[in-house]
């Protein structure tokens, strides 16, 4: 369940008393994030509204939504790793059940990333939601 993954992440981050350690942990996730090949990092895949460059690739696989992401900075890649872990390989209904505030507020990302980066996280989740909503529009048309 998508909610279980969100709870798992909240739990992982709650181990850090010092926000700097949590930040370093996300940077570490960023270093290990698979990312995209250089030729996949092109303008049509850029997500608008992020402070630094973020690319999002989407495709459908057996009725599920697949997302692959990359960014410039490790901290951004780390945040993308978390976002991908939550939303990748899901059905539209599941995807739409988790909003940006769930990750920023409930999981607590808000406490150690700047408002600019919070907006970036919102922008990418909104783009992911748009893919999910597009499918639903087509299905119910």
């Amino acid at each position, binding site marked *: 369940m998508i909610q279980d993954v969100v709870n798992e992440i909240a739990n992982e981050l709650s181990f850090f008393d010092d926000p700097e350690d949590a930040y370093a942990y996300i*940077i570490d996730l960023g270093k290990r994030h698979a990312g995209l090949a250089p030729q996949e990092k092109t303008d049509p895949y850029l997500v608008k509204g992020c402070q630094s460059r973020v690319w999002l690739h989407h495709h459908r696989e057996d009725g599920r939504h697949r997302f692959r992401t990359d960014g410039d900075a490790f901290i951004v890649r780390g945040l993308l790793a978390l976002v991908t872990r939550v939303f990748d390989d899901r059905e539209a209904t599941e995807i739409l059940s988790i909003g940006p505030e769930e990750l920023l507020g409930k999981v607590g990302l808000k406490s150690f990333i700047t408002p600019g980066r919070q907006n970036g996280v919102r922008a990418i989740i909104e783009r992911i939601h748009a893919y999910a909503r597009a499918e639903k529009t087509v299905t119910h048309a």
Partner: protein
Amino acid sequence: MDYKSSFGLDRVTVHNRPLVYLDNGATTWMCPAARQAIEAYETTYRANVHRGVHALSARATERYEAVRDTLTRLINAPDRNEVIYTPGTTEGINLVAFGWARRHIGDRKVALPEFEHHANIVPWQRWTAGIRPVRVTDDGAVDVDDWERALAEDQVGMGVFAHISNVLGTVQDAQRLCDIARAQGKPVLIDAAQSVARLALDVQALGCDWLAFSSHKMYGPTGAGALYGRIERLDETEPMLYGGDMIERVTLDKTTYADIPARFEAGTPNIAGMIGMGAAAEWLLTRDFDAIRAHEEALMARCLAGMAKIDGVRVLGTAMPKLSAVSFVVEDAHPMDLAGLLDFRGVAVRSGHHCAHPVHDKFGIEGSLRASFAIYTTEEDIDHFLDALTTSMEKLR
């Protein structure tokens, strides 16, 4: 003098650490005199200016207009009417681009060094035939020969330059650049945003046609600034904003405009902001600019020497003189990651492109980090920053 304590910076913590504020290129903290002047206006004589006959409005108008005299002295303008109040450097430049350049050299280009701030690029792109980029050398100095060639070209109508580059910190030989422009009979505008608080400015000696600066980079509040314009140029300038305060007589058929400077100051202005800026300018005028410069040179030397000892750090633009700001990149580290880690150590630096994409393109990088200094920056701040930089780089390895 312990500026850090009088400015209140010694009492600020971030992430439970004492603040080391090195983002002065973006905005400085306010000097106590500016804070007090704003407080006095807001609590003892708040009223609109240039309106009404009551005592409070008269008092506000008097203090507000007195700022013009202070700013006139700060830059040694020949006449107080040549100092136009603006919300900041950006709007001052926009007024010249829209109100003067569009009408007088709209079919020609504007020569400007490749390292300019976007505010000193985009208005010219918008209202003239475009930019004639002036080469910046690999070590970050304006190529003066290319400036001379550019100003001699028929297609170039004027020249503009930042006195101190907000990215590289390089200080231009403003006198020489102005002399060259004058010899070609071309007007010149100086963006003095980064120099007004660290170099004694004299627009008469420089012979520039315009000089724009902001309050918030000279220890005053944000949203206030000034544009010096030579009176002949101001006479030729069309206002950018229309409304109250800039008119002489309005009928429903026709309006005649007020004299300069009021012609360029439409609407109720940022009264508290200008009064705060005036107080900051008064305060600056009682400082010793040689001492300010010596202080910053010492900080710069210490910072550059420290950075040279850290493997993987590359400073952008090593040309001297260099004041106020040092931008750098770190091998295999994104500026944003480093700035984030430095923040946890209490160090505030700028990361990104610092509103200057072209200079980053020139150095072949997406962005950089920038540490920028002010009168209250101490050698301990620099040492703390260098330590934090080393630690943060280790965390990213």
